[in-house]
């Protein structure tokens, strides 16, 4: 298997991966620290005969993406916290109408305009619960250069497979750092290709639990209706309680039925670990050397690095906590994943968290100090 070795900026790795994954429509709006993705796409997409458009705001960007997705395109948009806040309206539309979408959210310090040029991990809960209403969501959190590439490809695959928005969540440090990467050849990528759905009597949402809608794109010969209102099996608006409840369940189960296919994580030094360090994104970059240093000191620490942050890797963590009774959550915010950890780990697990929200990422030494305190 051949490799292409390069030094590339994080945002550019993501943009290249998206193009390699077959993304053929990008709509975006400039925002620090994600703008390089839009800039790269504006230059490269037309070379391949693909579409790029800069819209008037982030709401419009995601709207255009949904429209293009319905017209058969593989779509991407990229933004940061403030823009992602604006996108929440259409994120909900994407879930409700079951549209494959990939959204890159490069986290910066918040709230509001906050710290545009500094990293943060404070959009954890916004990605999960930002849009109103009950909804399933998939959020991927790469931490290393190679993962920026592979998780971008996986984001497209998951969005196409589950007909749902997928968010690629990383931070300003990973976005701006130039790193050494071996780019895989396009032919070696696993790209999800959907079976063509057969439409029966236009009952596009008539399905079993765990199935996608039986729907084709626009202009394929079937005059279908797509709606942001709650809809029945034909897609027509309804508020009939039985139908509404059924549709809610179908949308949720379409994702939660296949957790094993969605949840992905890396474990380092976990086999005999006594302290579980939970860290993602830039914090995992500090936590890994910290765990290695702890090992040198004879402390049996291990790193659990989730690549899928939502749905939360609850089952696998519960298995680990049957043996490991100490957990340290490292996150660059005032405490978001730590509450999820409290829900997942039983009372006999000692839970600590290393938190900070001042725009400065953790150093391995700081994580090590916390590990040593256990």
């Amino acid at each position, binding site marked *: 298997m051949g490799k292409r070795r390069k030094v590339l900026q994080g945002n550019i790795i993501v943009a290249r991966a998206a193009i390699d994954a077959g993304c053929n*429509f990008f*709509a975006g709006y400039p925002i620090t620290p994600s703008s390089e993705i839009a800039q790269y796409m504006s*230059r490269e*997409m*037309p*070379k391949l*005969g693909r*579409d790029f*458009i800069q*819209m*008037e*705001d982030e*709401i*419009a*960007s*995601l*709207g*255009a*993406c*949904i*429209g*293009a*997705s*319905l*017209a*058969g*395109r593989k*779509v991407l948009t990229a933004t940061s916290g403030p823009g992602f806040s604006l996108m929440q*309206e*259409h994120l909900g*539309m994407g879930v409700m109408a079951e549209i494959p979408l990939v959204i890159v959210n490069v986290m910066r310090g918040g709230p509001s305009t906050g710290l545009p040029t500094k990293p943060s991990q404070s959009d954890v809960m916004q990605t999960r619960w930002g849009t109103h209403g009950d909804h399933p969501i998939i959020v991927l959190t790469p931490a290393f250069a190679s993962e920026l590439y592979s998780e971008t490809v996986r984001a497209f695959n998951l969005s196409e497979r589950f007909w749902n928005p997928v968010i690629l969540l990383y931070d300003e440090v990973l976005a701006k750092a130039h790193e050494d990467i071996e780019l895989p050849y396009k032919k070696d990528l696993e790209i999800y290709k959907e079976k063509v759905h057969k439409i029966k009597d236009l009952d596009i949402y008539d399905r079993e639990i765990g199935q996608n809608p039986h729907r084709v794109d*626009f*202009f*394929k*010969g*079937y*005059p*279908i*209706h*797509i*709606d*942001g*209102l709650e809809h029945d099996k*034909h897609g*027509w*608006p309804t508020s009939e309680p039985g139908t509404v409840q059924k549709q809610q369940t179908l949308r949720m189960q379409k994702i939660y039925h296949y957790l094993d296919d969605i949840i992905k994580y890396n474990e380092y030094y976990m086999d005999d670990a006594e302290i579980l360090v939970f860290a993602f994104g830039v914090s995992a970059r500090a936590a890994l050397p910290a765990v290695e240093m702890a090992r040198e000191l004879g402390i049996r620490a291990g790193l659990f690095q989730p690549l899928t942050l939502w749905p939360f890797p609850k089952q696998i963590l519960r298995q680990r906590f049957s043996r490991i009774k100490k957990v340290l959550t490292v996150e660059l915010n005032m405490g978001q994943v730590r509450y999820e950890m409290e829900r997942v780990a039983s009372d006999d697990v000692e839970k600590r968290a290393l938190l900070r929200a001042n725009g400065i990422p953790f150093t391995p030494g700081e994580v090590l100090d916390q590990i040593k305190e256990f």
Partner: protein
Amino acid sequence: MRHYERYIRYRTFPTPWCPGCGDGVVLKSIAMAFSELELDPNDIVVVAGIGCSGRMPTFFNTNTLHTTHGRALTFATGIKLARPDKMVVVISGDGDATAIGGNHLIHAARRNIGINLVLINNGVYGMTGGQVSPLTPQKFITETTPYGNIEPKFDIAELLIAAKASFVARETVNRPVQLKDVVKKSFQHKGFSVVEVISNCHINLGRRNRMKDPIAMTKWIEGRTVSKAQYEKMSPEERLHMYPTGILFEDKDRLEYSDLYYKHIIPAAQAAAEAAALKQAERTSASRKVKS
């Protein structure tokens, strides 16, 4: 079955509109325009936002999309850019298009992307029960202007001409035949087109302003509209509360956005890529020569 009924999705009836509502006239006018242009329903997508007008796509037997409040034009932009060969119609109300969607409206016009917008102006938020909109006439009583509206209304035609729309027309639901004709002409236009349709909401606007039935409201509309030719002869004072109708502005020469993108940007980018590849090849062969 009449020919235009091919474009109507009777399965989804009844409509949610009040008896006497102008939306039905608009629905039929659009279907008849499709019919007269002999379009394939599969080649059309009808997109709308929220409100009484937002429910209209459900009743077209074409590809249809009911989106979020004010944002229909953004979805339509994505569809048009992805499939420039298809017809993209957007239906919007006055609150939908000019308040929450005002930004998207002016930018779609500025881009001149090939979307055909039918903007139904009934001067009020009807679906939510009759609140003031940016197109409610001054002094009118609504649910949120109980002492009279103090804000001036937009002149949609002037606004969109200033925003560089290439086809701007206005018609009323009082004249269904003329409405169908102007809608049809707008559908034949290549860039961004808008037809403002002045409609009646006797339930949520008229009732609070001494026009409680459709007849009273349509008579009021009739008294407020004149042809473009007549309007141009009027003095500024006379024009103040009048709406000119017909095709108010048309620029047939301006290129449509997706046309420009596919005919200008893509070839330019591909030429740049070829030039860069050529340069790279020259550099490689030059370095090879040096080595040998």
